């Protein structure tokens, strides 16, 4: 059999297998898989053992290829999702200040949430959005949503739907237009923030679905930043937290908290030190910590196990790579 045919067969098999599971899911006889703590431990030990084997092989001079690394990364991310072991999540100071800043607000305060990201960054930011909404509803905050990225408001709606699936929050009976509103997206990047400083209405004449700004009780009396108590920004790049700090905080003095992707977060640390930013959630880790502080452990916490695993795998392969390098007598001229 030629390699081509084998490959096609493998792909076909995988797809058929997936189709069976899918049908199982739809018809309801597949209930999902969870590893008990004992099974989880066995899986972890097996994984560690196989890494040790690779290490030994490397010492003996047999290097593994790129694809092996790929497979391990895939496994390290996928398997922990099935595991039911919990890990202790320490709270970092920047997340605590964010939470404290929110606690200082009075119940029923008005918060503006700007969704400045799109689906590719959702894995990190969506859990933050959801737990932020949950927190807002716990405290009866009024939520005003907007976006500087075209897809941001869509993400907000998804997060809201997700939160409202929980009967506890559905019972809160949040009314659209009264308790929360989605003003939608506006082009213009930081200029949007700047013009909002004078007049929200000039940027958002209607809400997401086309309802007139004046007809929405929640924002009827909101003229500019002085009528909202807090701004929360979820950002994956430009425009994002940096622009919110530079315009909304520096010029209009709003209280700003932010959730960032991990890549973005280091850029925002200086603002934290200078107090322009009241707390920051950085990446999945920040999401998990915030979930812990607000007492609703959700996706962020669940994903943290995968996160830990994947970091360990990367570190393991750095070590293996370096072992290979030193055993190989530094023959290969690799640039670092």
């Amino acid at each position, binding site marked *: 059999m030629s390699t081509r045919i084998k*490959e096609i067969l493998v*792909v076909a098999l*995988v797809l058929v297998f*997936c189709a069976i*599971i*899918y049908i*199982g*899911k*739809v018809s309801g006889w*597949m*209930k*999902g*898989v*969870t590893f008990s703590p004992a099974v989880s431990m066995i899986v972890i030990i097996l994984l560690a053992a196989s890494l040790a084997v690779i290490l030994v092989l490397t010492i003996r001079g047999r290097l593994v290829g790129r*694809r092996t690394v*790929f497979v391990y*990364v*895939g496994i390290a*991310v*996928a398997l922990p*999702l*099935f595991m039911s072991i919990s890990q202790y999540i320490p709270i970092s100071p920047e997340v605590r200040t964010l939470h404290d800043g929110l606690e200082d607000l009075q119940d029923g305060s008005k918060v503006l949430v700007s969704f400045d990201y799109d689906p*590719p*960054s*959702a*894995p*990190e930011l*969506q859990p933050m959005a959801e737990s932020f909404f949950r927190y807002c509803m716990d405290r009866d905050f009024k939520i005003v949503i907007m976006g500087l990225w*075209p897809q941001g408001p869509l993400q907000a709606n998804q997060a809201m739907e997700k939160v409202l699936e929980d009967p506890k929050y559905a019972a809160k009976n949040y009314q659209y237009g009264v308790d929360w509103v989605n003003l939608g997206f506006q*082009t213009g990047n930081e200029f949007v923030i700047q013009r909002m400083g004078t007049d929200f209405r000039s940027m958002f*004449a209607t809400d997401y679905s086309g309802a007139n700004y004046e007809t929405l009780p929640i924002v009827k009396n909101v003229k500019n930043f002085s009528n909202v108590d807090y701004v929360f920004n979820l950002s994956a790049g430009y425009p994002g937290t940096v622009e919110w700090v530079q315009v909304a905080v520096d010029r209009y003095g709003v209280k700003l908290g932010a959730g960032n*992707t*991990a*890549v973005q*977060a*280091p850029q925002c640390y*200086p603002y934290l030190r200078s107090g322009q930013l009241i707390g920051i959630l950085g*990446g*999945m*880790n920040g999401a998990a910590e915030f979930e812990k502080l607000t007492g609703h452990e959700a*996706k962020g916490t669940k*994903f943290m196990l*995968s*996160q830990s695993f*994947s*970091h360990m795998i*990367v570190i393991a392969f750095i070590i293996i790579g370096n072992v290979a390098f030193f055993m190989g007598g530094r023959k290969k001229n690799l640039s670092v």
Partner: protein
Amino acid sequence: MFWEHFAVWVAAFLTLGIYSFLYKDNPWYKLCESIFVGISAGYWFVTLFWDNIYGKFWVGVFPPTHVNELGESVRTAQPDYWLLVGAVLGLLMLLRLVPKIGWLSRWSLAFIVGATAGFYLINYFSSNVMRQVQDTIMPLFGSGFDASAYVIIGNIVVAVGTFTGLIYFFFSKEHRGAFGFSAKVGIFFLMVTFGASFGYTVMSRMSLLIGRIDFLLSDWLGLIR
């Protein structure tokens, strides 16, 4: 109902197709790549048309009217005729399609390059040079030795690191002797910086993969509850 299943399968098919590139370049990947190129080019084409040409230019120059309570039709905003300059620059750009006078497009290009150069010259200078230099001027020991060892070491590290890092970028002097040593220290700081960004990036990228795998395993196959 059919469309829901179909949609999830389409998404999953495309997701797996892209991942198949990890094994090697193959027809499945090529198919997904072509769809991606076509769809995304079209997406931006449409988006820029509606957001910029229609939303910014057309609506800006010819603001829509609406009927107020008195039954009069009023403009929602004052027309902004300055936008016409942008339209002229845009049209000059499109002259590329006419080979004989295509060189006129250089005028818009020249305008954009000039504006970018001027704008960033001063913007970067103010935010990157002035701000950063000012932030670096800080008392190493706090006011009257009140800082903790943690902060003192940190402050010294920041001051020394910034200073030596700049030495590394000096072009006028060969990296030799004491100067060379300082440049070397500067590189050390750059390397720590790169290491730290690397660490953060690993974290971020892994989160993205977790998100994707969660899509495959829970949204598509329902294996995780």
